[in-house]
């Protein structure tokens, strides 16, 4: 009897005794040393989870203060300089220390080797090193915040960052440069792991879509991150030693910096979004109990997005004087991005159609994700249109658009995935009722916060400004009130997930009756993931038997 047959129809009973079973990865060793020097991908994933949660809280506090400041139109609460530092810290921390590492380093590290039936990633020591590099970059950033902050915005545009800013630009840049290497090493590890570590029978087209999106993300890590490393390094050299490249006083070209910056930072958007798409592609079939519709299309769409994303950076620069031919080309290519994105959305929707849907917490997040991603994606088309972009460029319309993708997309997918795999990570169930309540709070809070910003932007309120005309106050107060609801939605899971570690129901191996290798091992998994090395003889998302029963 093959592994798939023996495990397909039974879920091990909850709380089954541990006699004769190797201890799971959480109980294998207990010392701090065994955590901080662990090369187990699961423990490294947990270390990352704690680190990025810390930075998420930090970035959220900055966001809360920004919203607090914008309650009044005259900017009476903070000084201009403080406000500039707040939105810079919010951006730097959220982009580089939460969104980019979030799903790959936590779920990716934890699940990727299990999903392909491997004992670990290809280079476990390199994996540990990447966490230490992350911490090193984090220290630079924390140093920047403690000694006085930085006011360039997360984009570090020259020549303000190189010549005019009087804040701690260099440590902030070093933090981003260092954390980039951590991303590169994680990406490298995943690419090699996916190519060389798959279990017997685990062909490329039997990989869960999550693995495909991790692959696409890792390619972007490898190909785009070094470009921002060198661009920011040149900024450091220019600021510290006067080795200028971008300084217009010398005939240099600040727009060149924008090109180099967005050559990475647009693909970085897909570093943030693709893993979220992978998470949704796991959750939706599990809670519709139905095979993922159009598996190959979704897999190819991930690679399509990863390739297209390298050719659209110019749409960040429509109003900075680039040639019309360039603008038109970038506009056209940006429209093309909608195709693979839409393929994914239609496929998720078609998967839900006629499924036996269970609206548990992860599915609520997934449904929220699909709705918000569609809204964020469609407003992206507005911005890719040259004429409309002239009007809404650098306004709150842009802010709302990318928050719909980044928060409505990535953060919701992150939380959905966290609930979905929480039983696997910890061996405990989270309280379902609280989970649904907080998912609801986040959806309502998110829309109340960011939908008014579309209106504000369309009416002409520029981003990054501290003061605004009084007629915008109502919408700003609405947005700030929404951020309070959103904050509640974030605080609930932090409390009940920690609570569940001790008081949650013990999780069975497969609480969602889901498919995939990660559900065929115990919750939490043993140190080397499987008691016996698996052989794969089944297709991904093999929910057919349940479908026929429905």
């Amino acid at each position, binding site marked *: 009897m093959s592994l798939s047959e023996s495990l397909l129809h039974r879920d091990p009973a909850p709380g089954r005794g541990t006699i004769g079973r190797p201890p799971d990865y959480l109980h294998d060793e207990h010392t701090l040393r065994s955590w901080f020097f662990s090369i187990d991908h699961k423990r490294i994933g947990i270390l990352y989870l704690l680190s990025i949660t810390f930075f998420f809280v930090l970035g959220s506090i900055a966001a809360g203060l920004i919203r607090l400041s914008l309650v009044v139109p005259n900017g009476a609460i903070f000084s201009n300089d403080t406000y500039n530092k707040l939105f810079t810290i919010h951006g730097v921390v959220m982009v580089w220390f939460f969104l980019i590492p979030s799903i790959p380093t936590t779920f990716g590290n934890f699940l990727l080797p299990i999903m392909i039936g491997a004992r*670990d990633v290809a280079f476990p020591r390199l994996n540990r090193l990447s966490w230490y590099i992350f911490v090193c970059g984090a220290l630079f950033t924390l140093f920047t915040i403690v000694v006085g902050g930085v006011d360039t915005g997360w984009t570090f545009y020259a020549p303000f960052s190189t010549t005019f800013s009087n804040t701690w630009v260099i440590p902030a840049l070093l933090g981003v440069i260092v954390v980039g290497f951590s991303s590169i090493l994680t990406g490298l590890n995943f690419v090699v792991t996916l190519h060389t570590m798959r279990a017997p029978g685990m062909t490329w087209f039997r990989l869960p879509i999550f693995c495909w999106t991790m692959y696409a993300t890792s390619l972007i890590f490898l190909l*785009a991150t070094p470009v921002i490393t060198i661009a920011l390094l*040149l900024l450091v050299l220019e600021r510290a030693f006067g080795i200028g490249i971008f300084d217009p006083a010398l005939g240099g070209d600040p727009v060149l910096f924008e090109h180099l910056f967005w050559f990475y930072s647009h693909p970085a958007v897909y570093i943030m979004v693709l893993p979220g798409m992978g998470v949704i592609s796991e959750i939706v079939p599990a809670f519709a109990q139905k095979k993922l519709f159009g598996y190959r299309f979704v897999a190819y769409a991930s690679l399509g997005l990863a390739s297209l994303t390298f050719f659209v950076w110019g749409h960040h620069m429509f109003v900075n004087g680039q040639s019309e031919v360039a603008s038109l080309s970038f506009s056209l290519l940006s429209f093309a991005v909608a195709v693979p994105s839409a393929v994914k959305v239609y496929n998720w929707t078609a998967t839900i159609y006629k499924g036996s849907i269970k609206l548990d917490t992860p599915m609520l997040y997934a449904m929220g994700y699909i709705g918000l991603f569609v809204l964020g994606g469609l407003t992206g088309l507005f911005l890719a249109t040259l004429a409309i972009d002239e009007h809404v460029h650098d306004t709150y319309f842009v802010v709302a658009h990318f928050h719909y993708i980044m928060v409505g997309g990535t953060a919701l997918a992150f939380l959905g995935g966290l609930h979905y795999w929480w039983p696997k990570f910890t061996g405990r169930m989270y309280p379902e009722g609280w989970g649904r309540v907080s998912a609801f709070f986040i959806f309502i809070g998110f829309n109340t916060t960011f939908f008014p910003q579309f209106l504000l932007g369309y009416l002409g309120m520029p981003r990054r400004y501290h003061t605004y005309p009084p007629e915008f106050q109502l919408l700003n107060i609405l947005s700030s009130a929404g951020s309070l609801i959103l904050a509640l939605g974030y605080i609930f899971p932090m409390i009940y997930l920690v609570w569940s570690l001790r008081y949650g129901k013990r999780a069975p191996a497969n609480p969602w009756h889901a498919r995939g290798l990660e559900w065929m091992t115990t919750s939490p998994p043993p140190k080397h993931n499987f008691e016996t090395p698996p052989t794969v003889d089944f297709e991904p998302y093999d929910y057919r038997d349940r479908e026929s029963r429905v």
Partner: protein
Amino acid sequence: MRPVLSYVAAALPVDIALEEQFTTKAQQRHAAKFGMWCWLITELLLFGGLLLVATVLRVLHPASVSAAATHLKFWIGASNTVVLICSSLTMSGAINASRLGLQTLMVRCMLATGGLGSVFLLLKAYEYYRDYQEHMVPFLDWRPYALPHDHASRLFINDYFAATGLHGVHLITGIAILLVLTRQASRAGYLSLHQNRIEIFGLYWHFIDLVWIIVFPTLYLVNRG
């Protein structure tokens, strides 16, 4: 010098030790090599940014770039190209020796590689010194720049220092790793446990060579005309 046959007689078993995350040694070898290739692609894009800057500057300010490029020391750069190509030759000698289990020959080839790398660095340092003497170091405040009215040429020279400096950092790193590796690899039994590390390092070394082969024409050659 010992006759070649004596090296053959001293041939040792060649293998690698299986690490616990892998199932087979072939898988482990493949993963290690593949991982290094991924790293090199990343590195290539790191240099790509600087080379792009050089190309953009050439398009934006062709006269200034030419004026600056004629101050680069072509013959030192050319000699360094030869030195690095020779070092790649000795490195591939080391790799082949390691495959055959000829530990002594391998260690000597690795030392020769490190020596040639150091020659490159010495020549490069001399070149920087000449640049300094000729007032071609625009970012030093106390050293008036030789082409004071040509602002754009400063950018090109700055990029030259950034690119060759970054390459130098890679070479210094490479030599440091090479020395440590040579020390480890000269121990008895090394080749039966970690032979593939020589191959992996070899890839990195060839890459340093290759980057110079791209940097040299981009900075020195195409702007001379």
